[in-house]
């Protein structure tokens, strides 16, 4: 790939994801209408989820599902919360996510820094290639032995899931960090070293803060991956009391379950945290993900 293109895209992607500057002329109305119509494919299912969550069982049984709820049943949320043990699940999912994000950032930035600054040494080059091989090992190959292993070590629960989330991202995240570290001038750390800082102090006080944008990118990927993951917790967490939010939604799929109002109330509660976070941090998330996409 032409590196010039990637650089230009990165520059374009980091700040003005918004309207392009310098574009003249009036907006195209036919195109605007077409795009709004297309966006209904996203909005209608969301609208559907919201109205379903507020309906009474009787209303769900009678209509197509798209009608406005009448009466509005707020109680659905409290009952769904109780039924799936939502509070506990939320806590487990939040803890897994927080530690996965923090772990990914700390572990990967450290190894990337060590490799980038010792690139002239054989051992570090070998470590780099070793970690890179992780890009080619698909999850499906190791999941079965992995579950045996975590069960043997007694971490077949949220701890194991967190560790695997961190491991799964090592190859890709380290690559991102190493590419980014190349753009940080060495002079900055040299002056800190001359002032007597140790390697750890240099890393934490000089390098780590400079990695900010890449920390954001890695953090967003780790967040979305951990929060929404289904396969790993479903397979690995042995104790159903400690299951994550996506997995507990399976509860409503039982053959005898007809309480769709509670199911949708629960789906909506599972969607809301990331939805709100995204709407508020949109610009930041988009530029962060785009940075990862380009590298």
């Amino acid at each position, binding site marked *: *790939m032409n*590196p010039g*293109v990637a650089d230009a*895209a990165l520059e*374009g*992607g980091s700040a003005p994801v*918004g*309207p392009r500057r310098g574009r003249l*002329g009036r907006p195209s109305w036919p195109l*605007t209408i077409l795009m709004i119509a*297309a*966006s209904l494919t*996203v*909005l209608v*299912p969301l609208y*559907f*989820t919201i109205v*379903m969550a507020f309906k009474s069982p009787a209303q769900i049984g009678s209509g*197509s*599902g798209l009608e406005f709820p009448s009466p509005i049943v707020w109680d659905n949320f409290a009952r769904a919360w109780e039924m799936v043990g939502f509070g506990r699940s939320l806590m487990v999912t939040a803890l897994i996510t927080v530690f996965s994000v923090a772990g990914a950032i700390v572990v990967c930035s450290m*190894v990337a820094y*060590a490799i980038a*600054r*010792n*690139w*002239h040494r054989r051992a570090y080059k070998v470590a*780099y290639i*070793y*970690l890179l091989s992780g*890009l080619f*090992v*698909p999850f*499906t*190959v*190791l999941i079965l*032995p992995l579950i045996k*292993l975590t069960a043997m070590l007694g971490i077949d629960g949220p701890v194991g899931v967190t560790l*695997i989330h961190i*491991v799964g991202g*090592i190859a890709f995240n380290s*690559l991102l960090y*190493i590419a980014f570290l*190349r753009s940080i001038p*060495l002079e900055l750390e040299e002056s800190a070293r001359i002032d007597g800082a140790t390697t750890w102090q240099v*890393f934490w006080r000089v390098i780590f803060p400079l990695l900010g944008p890449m920390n954001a990118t890695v953090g967003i990927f780790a967040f979305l991956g951990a929060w929404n993951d*289904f*396969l790993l917790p479903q*397979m690995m967490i042995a104790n159903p009391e400690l299951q994550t939010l*996506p997995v507990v939604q399976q509860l409503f799929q039982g053959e005898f379950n007809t309480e769709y109002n509670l199911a*949708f109330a629960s*789906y909506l509660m*599972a*969607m809301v945290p990331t939805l709100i*976070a*995204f709407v508020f941090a949109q610009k930041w998330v988009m530029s962060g*993900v*785009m940075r990862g*996409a*380009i*590298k």
Partner: protein
Amino acid sequence: MTQATALTGAPPAGTPASAGAARPVPTRRVGAQRDWAFRLMVFPAVFLFTVFLIVPTLIGVFFSFTSYAGFGEWEFVGLGNYVALFTDPNIWAPYGFTFFLAIVCVVVVNVLAMAIALGLNANIKWRTPIRTVFFIPMVLSALVVAYVFTFLFNSTLPMIADSLGLVPLATTMLADASTAWIPIVFVTAWTSIPGTTLIYLAGLQAVPRELYEAASVDGASAWRQFRSITMPMLAVYLVINIILGFRGYLGAYDIIVAMTGGGPGISTMTVSMRIMGGLNGGDFAYQAANSLVFFVITLIISLVQLRVSRKGMSL
């Protein structure tokens, strides 16, 4: 994303080494301290990587040559599992469906994502709110989304179709082995279009505006500009999206578990679902062999795609 990096193929440049000459020569003690710090920084990643990625992979390889059921006793069976795989129709049916699904999803997702990216990049009103809406699916759990759509496809759509007199749509597509893949492709596309669109959007923003200005001055039509400027500039992003997408769709799991569970029959069973079944299904070793075969096939496909795209790109 991973392949994107492989494509750009950027090894960490020799900046530190080349700049090393300008570095004040450290005293021996400081040098040793520095070495230890660097070693400790590498340790967590290499340790976790070895224990939780390399070791399990090797264990999987080992058991694929045994008769291990997931519990109890086992013995070596040599290539027995691999031989059995190649003559087992219950294995090949999921392979067929998985590849079919991956190809259909790659085509559908890339066509729509490119159209959306072009639309978002064009001069439209309310761009920011419209873009926000299009990217919402990116942050939602695919499983929960699939549950919502299952209800839409099972109840809402047939009911609406019935009232409109559209008989073929009046029964649920998910219950019919010949149509169950359609809702699955729909939901897969719904959840993965934003990520793909984002990469195209990044590509479109990299196209210099001057190119379009020069083309308009020369009297090139909008279609001509798209074909001669936009498409060539997006080619590299198309390749990234195809390779990443294909690899992702080959691992399809969540959405299908939620929508059909692999049914009706095993018509929508994917390879990943088959392999996961090995955990409690009593055929641990057999599925371990299956997962390795699947791995080799996906690896070959990725390498071929990369090779072909490199060739196409250098033309």
